[in-house]
């Protein structure tokens, strides 16, 4: 005897406490079970790719802050790497190290958000995320020291970074880095070992490595499925080849593993920053580029406008969310001819529908949380 039930459409989002921005899941439910799911995006579309075609290469850097607004540094880095590849610029040594420091700190800060919000999605009443904010604050203070901004840093420049870190940065960074491992122990004890988080996330949203690869996933999504893949190792940029760190992978491919991988990566980030702080040489932080508008005073600094030789280039990095790529086509003009962002958040969303179908509403929220999307990066 089968009971006849009416399917029931629920909109999770765009205004909802746990959609991480203005993302909308249109769930068709049978009771609590999801029988169909539609992902609706575009609520935060700002036409960045088109806008970038009207602005000079340097003017485009602030856009890259605003795609992934939780990890602005890595957004900057991917873009300037692409332009540098196109121009054939090799930034000075110190700038490379600073870039690595900043992107690892940024990864830590971004993963803090991801982990905290994931715990929120599992139902903690804001507590982990508040603790995460406490640590993130310290990293943002470091960013403020280095570039004056906390969230939209706009720190990287084509050919280096916007300015050298002030003298007080190094002791402050050392202090933060010494503190963080203790916090990491705390998080691992309280979150990873938490019975309820395990119950909520183990075995939920299982992605096999085949599916993950087929969906072109990257970052913790891919590594959570057990594939040891990291752009920092596979295609080292900046000075990652001089640094010692491990790739963190999960073994089950479920939401818990993605969560786990992020926590483990945070430790690796601390380790990388530690090495960088020790090994970073002195020197200029910006290479002199022949510029249209030279800066007065003669000190090497970022040009406002550069002309990039015609051609195309793809700069990719391991952003906190996965492979972040900027594909730039230049026709030799002052602005890019085509500016494309391969945003990991968007591509990581691919399997969400299939993961969500067959689970319950509560699971879908956990799965979405484990993907760690940034809507600014999805919609661009």
């Amino acid at each position: 005897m089968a009971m006849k039930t009416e399917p029931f459409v629920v909109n999770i989002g765009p205004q909802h406490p746990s959609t991480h921005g203005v993302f909308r899941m249109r769930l068709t439910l049978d009771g609590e079970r999801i029988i169909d799911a539609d992902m609706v995006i575009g609520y935060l579309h700002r036409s960045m790719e088109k806008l970038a075609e009207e602005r000079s290469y340097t003017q485009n850097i602030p856009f890259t802050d605003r795609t992934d607004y939780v990890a602005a540094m890595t957004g900057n880095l991917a873009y300037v790497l692409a332009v540098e590849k196109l121009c054939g610029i090799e930034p000075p040594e110190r700038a490379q190290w600073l870039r690595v420091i900043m992107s690892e700190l940024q990864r830590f800060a971004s993963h803090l958000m991801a982990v905290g919000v994931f715990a929120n999605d599992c139902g903690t009443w804001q507590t982990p995320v508040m603790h995460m904010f406490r640590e993130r604050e310290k990293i943002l203070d470091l960013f403020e020291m280095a570039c004056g901004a906390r969230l939209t840093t706009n720190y990287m420049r084509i050919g280096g970074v916007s300015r050298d870190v002030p003298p007080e940065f190094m002791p402050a960074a050392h202090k933060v880095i010494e503190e963080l491992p203790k916090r990491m122990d705390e998080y691992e004890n309280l979150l990873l070992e938490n019975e309820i988080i395990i119950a909520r996330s183990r075995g939920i949203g299982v992605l096999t490595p085949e599916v993950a690869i087929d969906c072109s996933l990257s970052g913790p999504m891919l590594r959570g499925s057990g594939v040891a893949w990291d752009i920092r190792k596979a295609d080292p940029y900046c000075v990652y080849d001089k640094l010692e760190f491990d790739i963190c992978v999960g073994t089950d491919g479920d939401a818990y593993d993605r969560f786990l991988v992020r926590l483990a990566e945070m430790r690796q980030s601390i380790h990388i920053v530690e090495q960088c702080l020790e090994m970073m040489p002195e020197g200029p932080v910006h290479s002199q580029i022949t510029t249209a508008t030279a800066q007065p005073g003669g000190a090497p600094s970022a040009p406002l406008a550069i002309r990039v030789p015609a051609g195309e280039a793809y700069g990719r990095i391991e952003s906190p969310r996965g492979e972040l790529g900027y594909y730039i086509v230049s026709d030799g003009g002052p602005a890019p001819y085509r500016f494309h962002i391969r945003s990991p958040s968007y591509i990581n969303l691919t399997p969400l529908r299939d993961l969500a179908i067959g689970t319950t509403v509560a699971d879908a929220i956990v799965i979405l949380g484990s993907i760690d999307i940034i809507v600014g990066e999805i919609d661009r």
Partner: protein
Amino acid sequence: MEDTGSIVAFWLLAALTLGSALAVVVIRDLIRAVVLLITSFLGVAGLYITLSADFVAVVQVLIYVGAISVLLLFAVMLTPRASRDNAETFFQIPAILLTGLVAFTISLVSLDTDWTVVERGGFEETASAIGESLLDKYVLPFEMAAVLLLVAMLGAIVLVHPEGTEEE
């Protein structure tokens, strides 16, 4: 039943019980009907209290208000939207006949009974008396009822359990 309080309480509770029972029948919206039915149950519980049957009153709240009505609410919720009102049915005439019969029997019995006033002083412990008689004198019917309920429950589970969904 000589003091005023009990009499006022009796009439109020009787009005509540019968009024909401009537409304259950008359009202169209099924959910509201269930809510009114709950009110009616509560009125009956109140009547039990005026009869010094505290245990029965509390059990009335526990079983009828707490469990049966929730069951009804569930049943209403699982009904397709189209049949969710108290629409006209084929059963109108048989239902009227049946109701009339029941009403006739009850009035006959109540008129025929030789009502006597039982002298009882205030509240007495009824719970332990009920418990003792259930597990002592009437243990067999009690156990049989329990087994019957268990069987009914299992039967219900077997009936609604869809085929091939062992692993849920």
